[in-house]
């Protein structure tokens, strides 16, 4: 196949100094097949949370392990420790350097002290899973996974030193492509992006409703649990009063106790596994809507500049380069966004399939535990005194 580097699909030459276009070129040339399990060449895991107590503060770090065969990495394996701040830094850098792409969300930054225990096992584990998901999503992305900041995040022993350097490097490499949100007014949004915008609005609304329903269910379950915990022991008290019925009543009391334990486990699972993923997708939708806005701005700028040129009515054989650059940006942005949206839709479908199947599974397990408990006391209840 011909070497297409240096030209956009419509035939116009690529401005290689624009990192946005080169990355999107890479995007179009690389096949999605590269990300199949068989040909995957980058694996990242987040685990092993540890608490650090210093004079100024207490915080948690997580171990980030990388295994790779990519040439961009000096070694095949890396193991570094990172804290939430570092993930946050990475995300900001990615947003800055890859503005045309959808950056996965991070779990919420701030937690109200006193309401949530930031160092409880459950909270740390929930966060760890979300951070692991965050890095895996970047790893799976054909463009983001090659980002230099990502590379440094995975490999650098001293990330803070790099962070400080970063400001200087930025100006050197001209990396920060900050699209001016110059308040240009958009003429018409392409149908597909309008549709995406509408979809995201409804989608995040529905997720919000599901989040509220799930929370309400957990609340009702916990209130049910409170009553059950009083209910079971009354059978025990009764059993102490009786002679022949004492074993059956005691058995019933124990059975209800088992159901209580099963219910507690169900509520915990829903709180720790279900709700956080739901919230993650709500955050994802929010950040995607921001990217859409940026795209609108880029298009608006292009349209404004184009109009300005048309008004001047200059008889030039060539379109001025800055208008060309704008057109370029618009088309790259659109292409990147389209590709990312498709990938996002597919991942979303898989994620929710897994999430909802998981929810159904947990409920099935709860009922199975209760069923076992109740079935096991039937022989005890039917037991005749003569057979004892």
């Amino acid at each position, binding site marked *: 196949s011909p070497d297409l580097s240096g030209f956009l699909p419509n035939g116009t030459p690529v401005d290689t100094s624009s990192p946005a276009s080169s990355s999107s070129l890479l995007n179009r040339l690389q096949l999605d097949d590269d990300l199949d399990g068989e040909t995957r060449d980058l694996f990242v895991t987040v685990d092993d949370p540890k608490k650090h107590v210093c004079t100024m503060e207490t915080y948690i770090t997580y171990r980030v392990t990388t295994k790779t065969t990519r040439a961009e990495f000096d070694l095949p394996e890396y193991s570094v420790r990172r804290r939430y701040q570092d993930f946050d830094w990475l995300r900001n850098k990615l947003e800055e350097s890859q503005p045309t792409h959808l950056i996965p969300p991070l779990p919420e930054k701030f937690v109200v002290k006193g309401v949530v225990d930031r160092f409880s096992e459950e909270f740390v584990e929930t966060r760890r899973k979300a951070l692991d998901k965050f890095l895996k999503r970047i790893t799976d992305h054909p463009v983001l996974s090659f980002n230099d900041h990502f590379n440094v995040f995975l490999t650098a022993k001293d990330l803070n030193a790099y962070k400080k350097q970063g400001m200087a490097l930025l100006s050197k490499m001209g990396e920060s492509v900050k699209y001016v949100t110059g308040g240009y007014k958009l003429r018409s949004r392409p149908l597909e992006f309008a549709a995406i915008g509408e979809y995201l609005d409804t989608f995040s609304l*529905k997720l919000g409703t599901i989040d509220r*329903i799930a929370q309400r269910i957990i609340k009702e379950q916990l209130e049910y649990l409170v*009553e059950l915990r009083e*209910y079971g022991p009354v059978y025990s008290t009764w059993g102490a009063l009786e002679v022949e019925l004492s074993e059956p009543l005691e058995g019933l009391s124990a059975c209800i106790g088992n159901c209580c334990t099963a219910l507690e486990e169900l509520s915990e699972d829903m709180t720790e596994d279900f709700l956080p993923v739901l919230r993650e997708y709500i955050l994802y939708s929010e950040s995607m809507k921001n990217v859409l806005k940026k795209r609108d701005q880029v298009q608006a700028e292009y349209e404004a500049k184009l109009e300005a040129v048309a008004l001047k009515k200059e008889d030039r054989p060539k379109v001025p380069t800055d208008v060309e650059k704008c057109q370029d940006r618009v088309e790259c942005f659109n292409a990147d966004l389209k590709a990312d949206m498709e990938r996002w839709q597919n991942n979303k479908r898989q994620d929710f399939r897994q999430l909802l199947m998981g929810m159904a599974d947990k*409920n099935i397990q709860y*009922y199975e535990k209760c069923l076992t408990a109740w079935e096991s006391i039937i022989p005890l209840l039917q037991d005749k005194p003569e057979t004892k």
Partner: protein
Amino acid sequence: RAHDNCLAKKMEITVSEAEKRTGRNAMNIQETYTAYLIETRWVMRAHSQSMWMLDSLWRRYSEFELLRNYLSVTYPHIVVPPLPEKRADFVWHKLSADNMDPDFVERRRIGLENFLLRVASHPVLCQDKIFYSFLTQLFFPFFQADSRLKALNATFRVKNPDKRFTELKHYSDELQSVISHLLRVRARVADRLYGVYKVHGNYGRVFSEWSAIEKEMGDGLQSAGHHMDVYAASIDDILEEEEHYADQLKEYLFYAEALRAVCRKHELMQYDLEMAAQDLTSKKQQCEELATGTVRTFSLKGMTSKLFGQETPEQREAKIKVLEEQIQEGEEQLKSKNLEGRDFVKSAWADIERFKEQKNHDLKEALISYAVMQISMCKKGIQVWTNAKECFSKM
């Protein structure tokens, strides 16, 4: 369980219908009440022919109360089967506390039928003529037993209480307390469980709305949502069935009261006996004093006679004679009371043993059916969530 010779074996008794009625009561005030249809069916054999005899009549709850009061007073040594509750108690929010509510009326109908069957299968009670006429004849002697029943609530102290009856009374108190507690908490549990199931119905609506904006995921979401609706709706039948279990517990809550009543009646008899014995002893002493002239016990009469002059020998003779008559009467009475007491204890304990067996059997059955209900609920839960899981897997 019913005695071979008892009425229940010979006659089919049902309380088949309930009907709202309006009428004027004793104070000529218009009131609404529910009447229940008692239907009886038995085989009459005459001249080598058998025929099915059918009878039916309407009675209201207050008439059942009169019957039970009558049985309670006439057979004080029997643990008389209780009536279903007068007013709806231990209700959880969805149940109505209204006596005219159709669900309450229905459960009461079942309870009244159960009461009649219990009486009809009791070896002693089933033979009662008044009970028979309650079932078959419109005329029913309106029996006022208030005074005798009121005595049960009086406080008095027995000097030599029967240990077995004291223990039994204590047991019935404890049983009432624990079953009340159980029923209260169960009602709260039912309330909360209702809430959990119903909220899931909201998933049905939101999954449906969400499926409208999805392409590939749409069908799976929509059908899963339907299963969530099924899940939410299933709780109504589940809790209605559980009410039967609550009713079974309630019956024994009231049976505990009946058991207590037997103990109290025995206490009353014992007290009566002690009072009679005491009276006899004091009369004998009076007699002795009059005869011998010695005053061992202080009496107002003695004092006044000392102050205002002694009585004549004739007066004294007359008094002694009266006392001797009374003493003879008293001794006969005491003898018969003692006999009565022993008979009471013997037949009461026989019925108490019968009751204990019945209680253990019935409660075991109730617990088993409760466990079976829970198993059914768990299986339904597994089914619904398995169906939902399959729908999600098709997303």
